[in-house]
């Protein structure tokens, strides 16, 4: 079981007048087969948190550990833009992040491409695919390394509502099947309520303000009363924390 531990994490960028506090004294404990959403206004350090957890950025202070059964866990990352290598085919984009190119590995990549319904697009270049398809390649890439934890940074925010909706379903299906720990950044409260067991609310200045449990059965239909009520409750929380205005 994967476990993410964040202790006293702070991150600053720049010095002097350019100094920006992206995260301030964040403490966090996430583990097991959970889907955790991180919500908050733009610039409150959500991406920075994922970047530190995945090793792209280093903390200014504090400690971050991600373990899987007491050894270092392997993270997968889905970005806001698909971040595919435009000069490599879909299959080669998946193979790029693998440890080897064995037949077994290729079969695994194929399997996840089929899961996102792109099994027939393996030889295409990213430029030949629609935005939604590119994003699905990004999702398949993250799953294909069979990571212990999965980081997703507003992966659907640039897609049209219909595509986003069907991808949300696919993602949830894959999460249920693969039993990953997912950390999912979004600024869409509805999306967070639909997908997650737990919602972390961040405020400007990179402070973790609240930690909410959403105990409703999956799959959740946004049209259902219970889901709508939960969403309203979270939004009210936002108002209390004065996050809506910013």
């Amino acid at each position, binding site marked *: 079981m994967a476990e993410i531990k964040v202790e006293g994490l702070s991150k600053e960028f720049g010095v002097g007048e350019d100094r920006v506090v992206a995260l301030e004294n964040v403490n966090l404990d996430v583990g097991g087969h959970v889907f955790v959403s991180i919500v908050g206004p*733009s*610039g409150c350090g959500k*991406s920075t948190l994922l*970047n530190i957890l*995945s*090793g*792209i950025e280093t903390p200014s202070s504090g400690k971050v550990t991600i373990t899987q059964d007491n050894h270092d866990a*392997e*993270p*997968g*990352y889905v*970005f*806001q*833009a*698909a*971040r*595919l*290598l*435009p*000069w*490599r085919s879909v299959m080669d984009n998946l193979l*790029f*992040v693998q440890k080897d190119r064995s037949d077994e590995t290729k079969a695994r990549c194929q399997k996840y491409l089929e899961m996102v319904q792109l099994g027939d697009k393996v030889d295409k*270049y*990213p*430029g030949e695919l629609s*935005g939604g398809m*590119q994003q699905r390649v990004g999702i398949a*890439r993250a799953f294909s*390394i069979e990571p212990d934890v999965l*980081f997703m940074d507003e992966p659907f925010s*640039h897609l049209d509502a219909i595509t986003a909706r069907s991808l949300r379903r696919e993602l949830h299906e894959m999460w249920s099947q693969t039993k990953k720990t997912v950390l999912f950044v979004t600024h869409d409260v509805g999306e967070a309520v639909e997908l997650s067991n737990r919602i972390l609310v961040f405020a400007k200045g990179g402070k973790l303000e609240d930690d909410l449990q959403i105990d409703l059965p999956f799959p959740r239909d946004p049209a259902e009363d219970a889901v709508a009520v939960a969403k309203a409750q979270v939004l009210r929380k936002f108002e209390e924390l004065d996050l809506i205005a910013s």
Partner: protein
Amino acid sequence: MATVVTTAPSPGRGLPGWVKSPKFARILFPFVVLGIWYFIYYTLDSRIFPAPQTVAVFMWEEITLTSGVRYSSAAENIYVQFGITLMRLTIGFFIALILGTIIGLAVGISKKVDAFFHDWVMGVLAMPALVYALFLGLALGFGNLGPILAVVIAGTPFVIINIREGVRNTPKELIDMARSFEVPQNKITRHVLLPSLMPFFFAAIRYAYAVGWKGLVITEVFASDRGMGWTIKFWYDAHRAHGVIGYAIFFIIFALALEKLVFDPLADRAFKWRPKMDAVQMAEGDFGGVQREGFLLIEDQEIEEGVDTTVAKGGNF
């Protein structure tokens, strides 16, 4: 009351489709030039301005070696002259490419190295080819070294600028992606950094060749006793306009042949992952939408400040 006005698209007036195609326009061009040429020929004094057929006959005789003209140069005919020029161009071109790539990488990576080279690169870039042509003639005499150096001087700044832009445009978000997936550095270099440099490298090749060729011909006019530049001056000295124009057309044919037979196939092979585009787009780091999208979409990450690609495509053409 609402009135809906629609206009039916007017049917194409009379002209068949092939006449309106870009291909036809392309083929049309030389005929238009020929028409203008004949017009000027018949309105101007024909002793000064040669008829197209005079030039055609001249070119034919040059190619078939039937004109009976023996150049007052060690290189006796067009093939030898052309061979000499091509040899100078090739050597100079590769030196410019290697030198420019090394300096371009250094300049792109280090701000200090950039500061060291910047003004001089711009200075050389803005210098008329005539200046170094004359200087090289004075300093080095009429051998091969002067013309080769002319290619190096003309081409290197363009290679430096293009490679520098390539380095500055390294796709940070793709590198971050690779790091987050723990892809080893050598794999990142091969699959991310080098491919992202390719468009800039190709632009560098095209520009270096084009400006190198121009610098070379001028240098051969003033600082050489053989080569294509020298030959065109030979016909100028002989007051034979058909010779000058004939050689100008040889230049055009050579440039087009190189473009179609060497550069285009190379680029097609290297860039089959994206829709067709020209060297200027490549120099601007336009990766066929995909990459650009990547830059724009990550709105909350710091994007490299605007790069002055104007220089890469401008310069003294």
